[in-house]
C-alpha cells in the first residue's frame, strides 16, 4: 500500500477522533442532547472496514455510528447539524446522534435497538442477490448484541441463503456495564460463526492495517459468492458508554492500559518511524482536520429548525419510490 493511502487512513481516524471530541464539548454546552455514544478508541475499525467497501455496498450501523458515517464519506456538517437537531442534518434533525442516515451512500443508519440492524442487513443483501447486484452489506454491532436472538436468526439466515453480508462484531469488551464474560458463556466469538458454518476471523481492531487487510480479503470473498463472513474486531471504548455513564464497572487502570494501544497514536508513530509521515505533515493534518470540524460546527450553528408544521410529514410517503 502506498504512503499516501496510509496517510489517508490516519487522516480518516483523526477526523473521527477530533469530530467526536468536539461533540463531547458540545454536549456539555447543551448544543447536542439526548444520548451521545462516542466511538473514541475504536476508529480503526470503521476506517479499516468501510474504507474497503465500494460505493454500491451498503452499511448498517448502531447508535455508536459517528465514525461509520464519516468513514462512509458523509459530510461532517450534515452529521453535526443532525446532532444539533437542525433541518440541514442528514436526518432532518429527527434522528440525532443515534440515527444518522444517508440514502445516497447506502448508509442505512443509525439503529438504537441492539441487534435490530442485523435482520435488516440480511434483507439488503437478499435484495442485492435477487437483483444480481454486486453489493456487499457490512453490518456493525457490538459484542453485546451477540446475546440477542436477532443475532442468531440473522447469522443463520445469511449463511443458509449464502448472502453477501459482512458481519462486523465490534468487541470492545463491554455492553454498557456488562463485561463480555458476564454476557457470553463462550467468549470466543468466532466460534459462534462456526456454528452457522460461516467463516470468521478475529482481528486486532486497534491496528488499522490489520483491519483493512482482513476486511478487504473478507469483502472480496463475500463479493465473489463465498457467502457471508464474520469479523470479530477486538477494540476498546476509551470513553464512557454514553454521557450518563459513571463507569463504575471498570477500573481506570484497565482503560489506561488500552489507551496505550490508541489506534491513532500507534499508527502515527509507525508512519513517523517509516518516514511516511513528518511532524510537519502531522501538524498540517491536525490543522486540516480542526478546520473541517470547525466548519462542520459552523454549518450546524447556521442551520435552521424544521418548522413545527412539518411534524407529521413523512409518517407516510409523499412520493412513490422507484
Amino acid at each position, binding site marked *: 500500500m502506498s504512503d499516501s493511502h496510509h496517510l489517508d487512513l490516519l487522516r480518516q481516524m483523526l477526523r473521527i477522533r477530533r469530530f467526536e471530541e468536539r461533540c463531547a464539548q458540545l454536549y456539555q454546552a447543551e448544543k447536542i442532547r439526548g444520548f451521545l455514544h462516542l466511538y473514541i478508541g475504536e476508529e480503526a475499525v470503521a476506517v479499516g472496514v468501510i474504507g474497503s467497501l465500494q460505493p454500491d455496498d451498503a452499511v448498517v450501523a448502531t447508535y455508536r455510528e459517528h465514525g461509520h458515517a464519516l468513514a462512509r464519506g458523509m459530510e461532517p456538517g450534515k452529521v453535526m447539524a443532525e446532532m444539533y437537531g437542525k433541518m440541514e442534518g442528514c436526518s432532518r434533525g429527527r434522528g440525532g446522534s443515534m440515527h444518522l442516515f444517508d440514502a445516497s451512500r447506502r448508509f442505512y443508519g443509525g439503529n438504537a435497538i441492539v441487534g*435490530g440492524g442485523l*435482520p435488516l442487513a*440480511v434483507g439488503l443483501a437478499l435484495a442485492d442477490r435477487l437483483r444480481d447486484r454486486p453489493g456487499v452489506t457490512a453490518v456493525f454491532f457490538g459484542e453485546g448484541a451477540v446475546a440477542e436472538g436477532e443475532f442468531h436468526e440473522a447469522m443463520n439466515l445469511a449463511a443458509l441463503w449464502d448472502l453477501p453480508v459482512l458481519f462486523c462484531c465490534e468487541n470492545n469488551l463491554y455492553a454498557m456495564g456488562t463485561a463480555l464474560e458476564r454476557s457470553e458463556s463462550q467468549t470466543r466469538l468466532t466460534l459462534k460463526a462456526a456454528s452457522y458454518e460461516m467463516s470468521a476471523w478475529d482481528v486486532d481492531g486497534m491496528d488499522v492495517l490489520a483491519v483493512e487487510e482482513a476486511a478487504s480479503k473478507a469483502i472480496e470473498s463475500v463479493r465473489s459468492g463465498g457467502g457471508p463472513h464474520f469479523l470479530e474486531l477486538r477494540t476498546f471504548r476509551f470513553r464512557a458508554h454514553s454521557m450518563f455513564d459513571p463507569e463504575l464497572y471498570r477500573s481506570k487502570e484497565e482503560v489506561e492500559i488500552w489507551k496505550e494501544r490508541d489506534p491513532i497514536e500507534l499508527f502515527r508513530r509507525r508512519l513517523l518511524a517509516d518516514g511516511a509521515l513528518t511532524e510537519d505533515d502531522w501538524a498540517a493534518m491536525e490543522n486540516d482536520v480542526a478546520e473541517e470540524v470547525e466548519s462542520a460546527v459552523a454549518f450546524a450553528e447556521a442551520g435552521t429548525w424544521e418548522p413545527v408544521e412539518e411534524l407529521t410529514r413523512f409518517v407516510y410517503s409523499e412520493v412513490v419510490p422507484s
Partner: protein
Amino acid sequence: MTSIATPTRTITYREAMREAIRDSMQRDDRVFLMGEDVGRYGGCYAVSKGLLEEFGPDRIRDTPLSESAFVGAGIGAALAGLRPIVEVMTVNFSLLALDQIVNTAALYLHMSGGQFHVPIVIRMTTGAGRQLAAQHSHSLEGWYAHVPGLKVVTPATIEDARWMLPTALEDPDPVVIFEHAGLYNSEGDLPEQGGPVDLDRAVVRRPGTDVALITYGGSLPKTLIAAHELADQGISAQVLDLRSLRPLDTEAILATVASTHRIVVVDEGWKTAGISAEIAASIAEQAIWELDAPIRRVCSVEVPMPYARHMEEAALPQPAEIVAAARELVGR
C-alpha cells in the same frame, strides 16, 4: 362494491388471495413471497399452494422459524427496492417480530427525514373459532392500528381478498394485511372485471336505518347474520365494514352515526383499549350529540381463549349478542 351488471365467478377467499399473489408476482418481478412453509408445504392455510412450482424457491421462499429475522429481512429487501410479501403464519407468532415491525418498518421513513421508504406487505392470519386455544387464537389488529407509520387492512370479502394486495404492493409504506382464519373457506362471487381497490375507505355492506353495526374482518359474516335476524324482527340494521383499521375511515363512521344514531361495535379482539374502543372514542369526541343511545361494544370476553368448543363460543362475539345489543339500543 360488486356491481350487479358485470359477470362474476364463484371462488373461495383462499383462492382469491392466491390469485392476488400470483397475479402480483407475474406483473412485477420485484415481488416475492417469504415465510414459514409458504413453499414446499404449500402454506399453513394452503394460500400459496402451487406457487413454488410456478415461481421457484427464490421468489416463493421458505424460511426457518425466525420471525424476527425474516420479517426484518423483508424490511431490508423493501428498503433496497424489492416488494416483499412476508407471510407471518399467524398474528400469535408476530409478537416475535414486533420489534422489527414497530421499531424499524414503522419508523424509518420519518426518522430518516423522508429518505427511506419501506414498501413491504406483511400478511398474517388472525382470529379464533377453531378450538386452537389460548396461544393460537389472538386478535391483535388493534395493537397494529395503534402504530403510526403502518397501514392496517382487514379484507373480509372475496373482492377485498383478491384486490387489496395489489394496492398494498403499490403502496410505498408498510401495509399489514390481516386474514381471519375463519374466512379462507368462505365462497363468494368475484366480478370478472375487477381491479385494485382502495385501502382506506369503509364500506356499507348492508343498508339500514335503525341502528348501525360497525365491524371488520372475521366478524363481518356474524354481523351480517345478526343484521338479517334483526330485519326479521323488524329492525333495520346498517352494517359498516371498516376494511382498514389504520387509517380509520372516521368520515364513514360519523356518516353512519348521523344516519342511524345508534351504534354497536363488533370486534373479535379484547375490548379494553382495542380498536372497538377507538371507534367509540372517536364518536364520543366528534358526534356525541348525534347519538340517541349509548354506544355498545360486542367483543370477545376478556379471557385467554379456551379450547373446549362451548367455552370458546361463549368467549367469542355471537350473532345473538349482537342482536340483543342492537335491540337494547333500539328499545324493542
